[in-house]
């Protein structure tokens, strides 16, 4: 689960990582008030779940509250990579002497947590990784041992030279690691981590941006994090509804709605539909447990898509029981007007029971995937004609 920069910064602050002052705003007026409170030059940053905000005009400096208002208005009117900007972060602007990158993620090839740090901060780190891999220092954490002091030293001495900065950096590494492990993250990133210029005040380290992605499987341990999920993100509305009902749903461009059990079979089903000349309208995995209501919900979600010309139910029962699916289908027919043809293919656990249920309601189901897919592609084409 992705969260926004302003939310990630709140988390950083709770864990004691130094961040710039600021707050989230939904309107230009709110932004102006925040700028007044901060009483300094501010940076206004679009809060959207895509990269490249800066290039798209989503990050701008404002020198006073009035300018903040107008810049906020502009940014709140933007669409970045198809996503409308609904929230902005208004934060104090700070002077920067140098920018660094610090990130923690998982390296699945070695099954370890890995720190990535670089002197090349503030830029696209994947770009750096691709073109100048020697600029990135990787430090692997043994999960049974945890982050060790020597590893913090290794990174701090590689990035910084002043004693103060080295100690601050070691402290930040420790705290970012606590964020990562404490909240079951799959990514915790500071880009850039900056040092402010030496002047009248002491030069210090600050996290100017913050990015945190949670492991979806870890959320069960941190129910409080659900509150951070952005319900404003329009393109995911159906996906959120699906998830709330125990389904995994991803909308695609085609005209054949799919209801399948299991991610692998769901993907394979999409692949075969395409192979047979059709286009899948979605990925939908009803998951392992077989609650008839899930099928009702699945129909509700996929039928919202007006492009759909036919629905394909492909079930190979294991932990999912075919009779539950059949009952769900009948229930869906009762509860709503299913205006497109539905092709059913059933096999596996309680298959015979399911056929009995379906037959008694005058439905029939294929056993062969080939026949079923041929049929659904044919019906979808007829619907389009």
């Amino acid at each position, binding site marked *: 689960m992705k969260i926004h920069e302003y939310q990630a910064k709140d988390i950083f602050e709770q864990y004691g990582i130094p961040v710039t002052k600021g707050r989230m705003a939904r309107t230009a007026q709110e932004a102006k008030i925040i700028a007044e409170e901060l009483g300094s030059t501010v940076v206004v940053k679009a809060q959207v779940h895509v990269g490249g905000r800066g290039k798209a005009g989503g990050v701008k400096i404002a020198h006073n509250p009035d300018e903040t208002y107008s810049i906020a208005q502009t940014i709140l009117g933007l669409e970045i990579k198809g996503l409308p900007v609904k929230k902005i972060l208004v934060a104090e602007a700070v002077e920067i002497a140098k920018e660094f990158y610090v990130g923690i993620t998982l390296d699945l090839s070695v099954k370890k947590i890995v720190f990535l740090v670089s002197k090349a901060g503030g830029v696209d780190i994947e770009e750096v990784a691709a073109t100048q891999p020697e600029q990135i220092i990787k430090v692997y954490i*043994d*999960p*049974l041992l945890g982050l060790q002091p020597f590893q913090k030293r290794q990174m701090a001495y590689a990035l910084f030279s002043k004693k103060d900065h080295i100690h601050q950096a070691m402290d930040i590494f420790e705290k970012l690691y606590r964020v990562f492990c404490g909240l079951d993250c799959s990514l915790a990133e500071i880009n850039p981590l900056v040092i402010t210029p030496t002047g009248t005040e002491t030069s210090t380290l600050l996290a100017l941006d913050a990015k945190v992605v949670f*492991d979806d499987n870890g959320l*069960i341990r941190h129910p409080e994090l659900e509150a951070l999920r952005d319900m404003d993100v329009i393109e995911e509305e159906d996906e959120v509804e699906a998830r709330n009902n125990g389904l995994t749903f*991803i909308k695609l461009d085609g005209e054949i709605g799919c209801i399948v059990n299991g991610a*692998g079979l769901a*993907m394979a089903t999409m692949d075969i539909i395409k192979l047979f000349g059709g286009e899948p309208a979605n*990925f939908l995995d009803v998951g392992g447990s077989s609650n008839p209501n899930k099928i009702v919900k699945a129909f509700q979600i996929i039928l919202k898509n007006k492009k759909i010309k036919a629905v394909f139910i492909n079930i190979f029962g*294991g932990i999912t029981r075919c009779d539950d699916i059949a009952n769900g289908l009948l229930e869906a027919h009762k509860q709503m007007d299913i205006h497109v043809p539905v092709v059913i293919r059933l096999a596996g656990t309680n298959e015979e029971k399911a056929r009995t249920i379906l037959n008694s309601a005058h439905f029939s189901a294929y056993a062969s995937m080939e026949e079923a897919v041929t049929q659904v592609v044919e019906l979808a084409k007829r619907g389009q004609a």
Partner: protein
Amino acid sequence: MTILIDENTKVIVQGITGRDGSFHAKGMRDYGTKIVGGVTPSKGGQDLEGIPVFNTVRDAVDQTGANASVIYVPPLFAVDAIYEAVDAGLDVVVCITEGIPVLDMLSVYHYIQHKKVVLIGGNCPGIISPGKCKIGIMPGNIHKEGRVGVISRSGTLTYEVVNSLTQAGLGQSTVIGIGGDPVKGINYIELLKRFQADEFTDTIVLLGEIGGSDEEAAAAYIKQYITKPVYSFIAGKTAPEGKRMGHAGAIIAGGKGLAVDKIRILEEAGVHVLDRPDIMGNVIRGGQ
């Protein structure tokens, strides 16, 4: 014949009194698996249709002589269940549980590296040696004894392929669903090694999907060490990039883990990669 399990494998069910645990405990016993006991803390002394329930795995092992276990407990308790099974000295531990946090599995992965245990899963359908022993949730009736070994990251996709094999008259030596999670117990390579060494396996089927680089690693191993014919299907050719397709592992990030790349690399390793799973049986029969 079979790898890892056989007709003498004695299995206990961790979480036997839960909805899934009790359903599949009976299913496995009906299939013929020696289900010798179950574990649910605080239910020790009870029984599930004659299967004795214990408070701890240690108790169950001491009193039944079990050498394998299968885990049906909620995700936040699964890792403790795995450690308990490993600690009790079991040879094979199958973790069905879906949704285990990946940081928990990192610890498990490193902890078991130098232990004798073979961990299958989590988030997997289990392992079956047709006609001898089924440990997991797969529908037993679609399987048939034979000489094809199947390894898969997916559950239902595996059933599809096994069904196709059986319908084409090709039985299976052992079928293992290793699970769809990014960090899991046993992986392709260790199983390829075992199938290559197993005199009762002639042909290997490797089912993969988008995301991660396990199939690429398997391809490199096949190229170097596997002389038996390997057939494959990789799901997710039509999946869009950057979207999570149900399995935590089935996500394509930064151009890595694409189906097209996996297919190419497997083909370069001499693997026959099919473009649909349901014809696996006929293709292999034709190829033999």
